């Protein structure tokens, strides 16, 4: 259809929005509140990045410097040249990769069973998965530490990986289940009616559909494992074996804190999380609703 043949719709006289002054004030008030909340949320992050770019003597000046006027990269240089930075990066990458790979595969299989099959004790299992996430890590860590020290896994990355799975897995199973429930059973059944085997239906129908869910779940797992602190802090003593988060905490020393490089290091550590989040943020919004609360 070209625009020439289109019949112009009769213009509807615009209904003047009759918002009374009071109502407008009301709306303004809510908007201002929204902006304030936004600022409160964003400011710490901004301050971290801003401090990372400030030269040393300006960081602790009494008049706060809102925008770094003479930005410098020296803090980043210092952070990267801190002892054990690259060790920490390597360790973090190893731990996170293994945890994500293992947890996504295991969680996918478990969630498949929970979402697609009926078996005795299934509901109890789901309740358990939800409930176990509510146990604080700081409480869990004492028995686990004793257990792991008996297995000689303290101060080893394998021990930390095993520990991480204890809290990443319940979460990933739950999220994965949410995604799988969103796929109607009819699709698989239709494929099987058309002659696909159960496995064929799984590979050709279910897997492509659940792909976004797999990606989102692995990002969740990534963020959790990447940001974890207590376990790594307790389990890894030797500096060469520490992960990035423990390495970051080592900036706070008895003699005070070296804020510039600390903030630069923190910015560097936050970067992968932010990048991954941006890559999948739309799916994460969906994943949150699919996995957590569906009203």
């Amino acid at each position, binding site marked *: 259809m070209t625009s020439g043949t289109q019949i112009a719709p009769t213009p509807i006289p615009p209904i003047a929005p009759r918002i009374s002054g009071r109502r407008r004030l009301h709306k303004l008030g809510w908007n201002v509140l929204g902006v304030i909340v936004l600022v409160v949320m964003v400011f710490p992050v901004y301050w971290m990045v801003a401090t990372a770019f400030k030269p040393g003597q300006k960081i602790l000046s009494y008049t706060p410097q809102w925008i770094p006027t003479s930005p410098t990269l020296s803090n980043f240089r210092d952070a990267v040249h801190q002892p054990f930075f690259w060790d920490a990066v390597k360790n973090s990458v190893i731990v996170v990769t293994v945890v994500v790979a293992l947890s996504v595969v295991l969680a996918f299989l478990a969630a498949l069973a929970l979402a697609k099959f009926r078996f005795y004790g299934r509901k109890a299992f789901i309740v358990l998965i939800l409930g176990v996430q509510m*146990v*604080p890590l*700081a*409480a869990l860590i*004492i028995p686990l530490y004793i257990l792991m020290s008996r297995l000689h896994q303290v101060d080893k990355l394998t021990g930390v990986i095993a520990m991480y799975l204890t809290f990443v897995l319940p979460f990933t199973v739950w999220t994965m289940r949410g995604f799988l429930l969103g796929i109607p059973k009819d699709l698989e059944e239709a494929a099987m009616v058309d002659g696909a085997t159960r496995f064929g239906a799984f590979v050709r129908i279910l897997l492509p559909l659940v792909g976004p869910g797999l990606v989102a779940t692995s990002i969740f797992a990534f963020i959790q494992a990447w940001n974890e602190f207590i376990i790594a802090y*307790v389990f890894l003593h030797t500096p060469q074996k520490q992960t990035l988060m423990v390495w970051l905490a080592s900036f*706070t020393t008895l003699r005070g804190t070296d804020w510039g490089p600390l903030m630069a290091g923190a910015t560097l550590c936050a970067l992968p999380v932010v990048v991954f989040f941006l890559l999948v943020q739309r799916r994460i919004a969906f994943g949150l609703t699919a996995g957590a609360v569906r*009203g």
Partner: protein
Amino acid sequence: MPLLMPIFVILTSLSIIWDFQVFQQIWVMLDGRPTSDYYTMAIYAFHQSFQISEYGLGAAIAVVMVLFMFGATLVYLRQMLRAGEIR
């Protein structure tokens, strides 16, 4: 509001559970040496077990902490069941 109620209950119970176990922020800011004024239960348990090696006492504190949280967890799980989340 009545429609949003279940979500409020879920979020409130989750928030109670999560905020009850605050550890990292306090720990890192005070460089692993918080005085008892700054103790949360998580920090208390951690201090007892890993800094003065009273693992038994630490574990006991942790158990008490879990028991405290049990109430909130029950509210959360019940609401999830009601919302039809657990099928």
